[in-house]
């Protein structure tokens, strides 16, 4: 299984991505998807995302290979947008196909936890005409850490 990874400015269509992921895959019995959106809390109006071209794709491929080693998966699609995204816009998609729902749910959560703590993206927040860098959250590190114990 090789992961389908895209870093792009453009929006994506979740149902089209699920269609593509499941086409000609008779072993697939389940697809779990996670979609992240720009949340407008605390007066936030937009996020501006930058990344490390080259390393991002490699790091996500490593994370996906790690997931494929832990669970029996039939396909993975990961799309992460970059650039300026306003409140309500989609940022990230993780779609995981497997024979059964347990692996699909777990691998989807694993991929998001590792994406947040390993993939080289950085966010700036825009609020009230000013912008500032988002700090990494300890809760995200803790979420990724729990997969080490299992």
């Amino acid at each position, binding site marked *: 299984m090789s992961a389908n990874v895209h870093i792009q400015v453009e929006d994506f269509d979740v149902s089209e991505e699920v269609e593509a992921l499941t086409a000609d895959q008779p072993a697939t019995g389940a697809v779990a998807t996670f979609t*992240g959106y720009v949340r407008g809390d605390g007066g936030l109006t937009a996020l501006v*995302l*930058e*990344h*490390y071209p*080259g*390393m991002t794709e*490699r*790091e996500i491929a490593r994370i996906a290979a790690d997931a494929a080693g832990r669970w029996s998966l039939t396909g993975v699609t990961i799309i*992460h947008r970059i650039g300026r995204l306003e409140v309500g816009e989609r*940022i*990230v998609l993780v779609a995981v196909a497997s024979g059964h729902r347990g692996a699909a749910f777990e691998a989807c959560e694993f991929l*998001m936890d590792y*994406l*947040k*703590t*390993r*993939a*080289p*993206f*950085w*966010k*700036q927040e825009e609020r009230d005409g000013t912008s500032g*860098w*988002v*700090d*990494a959250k300890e809760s*995200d590190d803790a979420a990724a850490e729990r997969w080490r114990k299992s």
Partner: protein
Amino acid sequence: MNVLYFAWVRQKIGRSEETIEHTPELRTVSDLAELLRARGGGYSEAFGDMSRLRAAVNQVHVALDAPLSSGDEVAFFPPVTGG
């Protein structure tokens, strides 16, 4: 070596990349960070508190004691915040 900066590290330094010659004194990522910090100005701001920085060598996350070689691509950046 090609040295890259991202997010607020890039902003404080005022550039996104530069070439730095590898010398025998630059044994580790930490040695390079110290050389850069000693330049003063935006560099000393960016490299003043290494606990706030992360690094990659040849596009792989590394610890600050990771060794350096001629031709490496080294990147400095804050903890990542994607997803």
